C-alpha cells in the first residue's frame, strides 16, 4: 500500500457519512456498522502507512498535483499519531444511542479531524477546520435538551466569528506570499513574513483556531457546551478536536512563524488560560463544569508547552496533549456517571470501586504524581520552560506549577466528597457498561504507559525531532534538488509510488 492510500483515511469516513442518513432510513444498524467499518478501515490504513514509513516522513500530493500548486498531505510521526488517534477515539466515543444523522456527523467529524492532522495546506486546513466545526455544532445541537441548542448557537456564533478572522489571516498570508502550501510558506517565510504583518497574520490565525483549541479567552463556549451534552460528545470534543486545532497552530508556528514574538503570544494566552481555567474550576459547583474549566486550564498548559521553541517544547507539548487526550474524555465519562452538583455527590462513589479507582487514577495523573505519565508531561513542560529561561517562560512555569496546586485542591476535594462516609446522595445511578469500559481502557493505557516510559519518551523525542525539522518538511513536500517532479502529465500512469515521494529520514533519537 502506497502512502497515497492515506487519503482513504479521510475519504472512507466521508463516504460512509454521506451514505449513512440515507441508509439509516431503512436500517439504523446497517448505518452504524457502515460507520464502524469506515473508521476501522481508516485506522487500518493509517496504521499500515505508519508501519510502512517506519519513522520516516512522506508527502502525498492529493490528486497528483505538484505541492505548491496542489494540496499535499504531509505524513510524519506527529501527524500520523494524531490521525490514528482520530478513528480510534471516535470509535470509543461513538454515539451509540444516536440517529443515523448523528452517525453521519460523527463520521464527518472524524474525517475532518484526520484531515486536520494530515493536511499541509493552510486553506485546506481551514476547510477541515470548518468541517469539524459544523459537524460539532450539529452534534451538540442534536442533544435532546434545549440547553444544548442554545449552547450550540452561542458556540456557532463565536466559532464562525473566529473563522472569519482565520480566513482574514489566511488572506493576509496569501497576499504576502502567493502560496498556501505550508512547506512552500516555510521557505518563503524568512523573507516575507518576518515582520509585523506576518505576526498579525499569525495572531489572526491563532485566535481563529483558538476557538476550537479552547485558547483563552475565546473559549467561552467550553463550559456551556460541555455541560450541555453527553459525556461521550464532551470527551470527543475536549479530547480530540481541541488537540487537532492545537496541532494546526503548532504546525503554523514551527513552519511559518518561527518568531519569538509569536511563541510569546501563545505563551501569554496559554498562561492566562491556565490561571482562569483552573481558578474557575476551583469554584465550579458541578462536576461537568469543573472538568470543562479544568480542560481549559489543561489546554493552556498545552499551549504554554508548545510555545517553547525547539524539540523540547514539542516533546513537552505532545506529552501534555496526549495525556490530556487520554484522561479528560475518560473523566467526562465518569462525570456522566455521577454528574450534577458536587454537593449532591456526598458518598456517591462508595461502593463503585472501579469508577472511584479510575477517578483517583486520573486525578493523580492530572496532578502529576510520579510515576504516572502526567508527572513526566508536567516535568517536561516545566523543564523546557526553565531551560528557555526568559522571564515570560519562567512565569509560565510558575503558573503551571501553581495551577497544579489548585488542581490538586479541587480534584481531591471532589474526590473527598465522592468517597465521604456519610451519604447524603440519592442512590447512585446504575452502572453503565460501555462508558465504564472506555474509561477503564483509558486507565489501563495510562497505567500501562508507566511501564513503557522509555520507548514512549524516545518515540516522542523522535516525533518532535521530525516535527521541528523544517528543512525535512520542505524537502519532503517540495522535493529535494534533482528530484523528479511528480506530475500526472509527465508520468506513466500507475507508476509505483505515484505522486508520493517517501523520503526516509533516519529516525533521529536525541540522546
Amino acid at each position: 500500500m502506497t502512502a497515497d492510500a492515506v487519503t482513504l483515511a479521510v475519504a472512507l469516513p466521508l463516504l460512509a457519512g454521506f451514505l449513512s442518513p440515507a441508509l439509516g432510513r431503512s436500517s439504523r444498524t446497517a448505518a452504524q456498522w457502515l460507520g464502524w467499518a469506515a473508521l476501522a478501515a481508516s485506522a487500518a490504513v493509517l496504521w499500515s502507512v505508519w508501519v510502512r514509513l517506519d519513522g520516516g516522513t512522506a508527502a502525498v500530493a492529493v490528486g497528483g498535483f505538484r505541492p505548491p500548486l496542489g494540496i499535499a498531505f504531509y505524513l510524519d510521526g506527529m501527524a500520523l499519531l494524531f490521525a490514528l488517534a482520530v478513528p480510534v477515539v471516535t470509535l470509543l466515543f461513538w454515539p451509540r444511542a444516536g440517529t443515523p444523522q448523528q452517525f453521519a456527523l460523527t463520521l464527518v467529524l472524524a474525517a475532518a479531524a484526520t484531515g486536520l492532522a494530515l493536511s499541509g495546506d493552510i486553506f485546506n486546513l481551514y476547510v477541515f477546520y470548518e468541517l469539524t466545526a459544523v459537524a460539532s455544532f450539529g452534534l451538540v445541537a442534536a442533544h435532546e435538551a434545549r440547553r444544548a441548542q442554545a449552547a450550540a448557537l452561542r458556540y456557532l456564533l463565536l466559532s464562525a466569528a473566529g473563522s472569519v478572522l482565520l480566513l482574514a489571516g489566511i488572506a493576509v498570508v496569501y497576499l504576502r506570499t502567493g502560496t498556501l502550501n505550508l512547506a512552500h510558506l516555510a521557505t518563503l517565510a524568512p523573507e516575507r513574513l518576518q515582520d509585523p504583518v506576518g505576526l498579525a497574520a499569525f495572531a489572526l490565525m491563532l485566535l481563529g483556531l483558538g476557538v476550537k483549541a479552547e485558547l483563552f479567552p475565546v473559549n467561552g463556549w467550553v463550559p456551556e457546551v460541555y455541560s450541555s451534552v453527553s459525556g461521550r460528545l464532551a470527551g470527543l470534543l475536549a479530547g480530540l478536536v481541541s488537540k487537532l486545532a492545537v496541532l494546526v497552530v503548532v504546525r503554523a508556528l514551527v513552519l511559518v512563524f518561527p518568531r519569538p514574538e509569536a511563541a510569546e503570544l501563545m505563551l501569554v494566552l496559554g498562561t492566562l488560560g491556565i490561571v482562569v481555567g483552573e481558578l474557575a474550576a476551583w469554584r465550579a459547583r458541578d462536576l461537568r463544569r469543573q472538568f470543562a474549566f479544568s480542560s481549559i486550564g489543561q489546554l493552556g498548559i498545552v499551549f504554554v508547552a508548545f510555545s517553547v521553541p525547539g524539540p523540547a517544547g514539542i516533546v513537552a507539548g505532545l506529552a501534555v496533549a496526549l495525556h490530556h487526550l487520554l484522561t479528560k474524555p475518560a473523566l467526562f465519562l465518569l462525570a456522566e456517571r455521577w454528574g450534577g452538583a458536587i454537593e449532591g455527590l456526598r458518598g456517591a462513589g462508595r461502593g463503585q470501586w472501579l469508577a472511584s479507582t479510575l477517578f483517583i487514577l486520573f486525578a493523580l495523573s492530572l496532578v502529576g504524581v510520579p510515576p504516572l505519565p502526567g508527572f513526566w508531561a508536567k516535568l517536561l513542560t516545566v523543564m523546557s520552560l526553565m531551560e528557555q529561561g526568559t522571564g515570560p517562560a519562567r512565569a509560565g512555569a510558575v503558573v503551571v506549577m501553581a495551577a497544579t496546586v489548585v488542581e490538586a485542591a479541587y480534584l481531591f476535594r471532589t474526590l473527598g466528597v465522592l468517597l465521604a462516609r456519610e451519604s447524603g446522595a440519592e442512590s447512585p445511578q446504575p452502572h453503565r457498561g460501555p462508558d465504564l469500559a472506555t474509561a477503564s481502557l483509558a486507565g489501563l493505557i495510562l497505567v500501562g504507559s508507566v511501564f513503557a516510559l522509555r520507548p514512549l519518551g524516545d518515540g516522542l523525542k523522535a516525533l518532535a525531532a521530525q516535527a521541528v525539522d523544517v528543512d525535512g518538511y520542505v524537502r519532503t513536500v517540495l522535493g529535494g534538488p534533482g528530484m523528479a517532479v511528480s506530475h500526472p502529465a509527465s508520468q506513466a500512469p500507475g507508476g509505483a509510488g505515484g505522486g508520493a515521494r517517501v523520503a526516509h529520514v533516519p529516525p533521529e533519537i536525541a540522546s
Partner: protein
Amino acid sequence: MSLPPLEIVLYAGAVSLLIIGLAGLVMSEHLVRLVLALGVAEAGGNLLLVLTGFRQGAVAPILLGAAPSGPMVDPIPQALVLTAIVIGVGVQALALALVLRVRRAYGTVHMSALRARLVEDLDEAAGLPPEGSREAPGVERPV
C-alpha cells in the same frame, strides 16, 4: 484630488464589511441580527480573500478561444472564495435553524435573555440551586 487606487478602496470596503459584521456580532441582541451580522462579516472575509488574487488590469482565467489578451488574475483565490462562500452558506443555514429551534424552546430571540436562561438551565440540569449568593462558594473551600 484623485481617488485612491482601486485595490485600496476594495480593501477598505472588505475590511469595513468585516468590522461591521463583527461589531454587529458583538453589539446585536436579536438572534437573527446576529446571524445577519455573521453573514456580513463573512462577506467581508470573502471579499478580502478574493482580493488577494486581484491584479490591475488582468482578465478572468479562462482559456477559451483565442490566447489570453493580457495577464490573468490569480485563479486560486477565486476557487478559495467559492469554497468559503459555500461554507458560509452552510453555517448560516445551521445558525438559522438553531435560531428557530431556540426561539421555540425558550420563547426568546434575545441573546442576553437566552444566556440567562441557559445558565439557569445548566444549573438546573446539574441539580444546583440557583446561584443566590455569588460570594459564597458552593462547596467547602479546600483549605
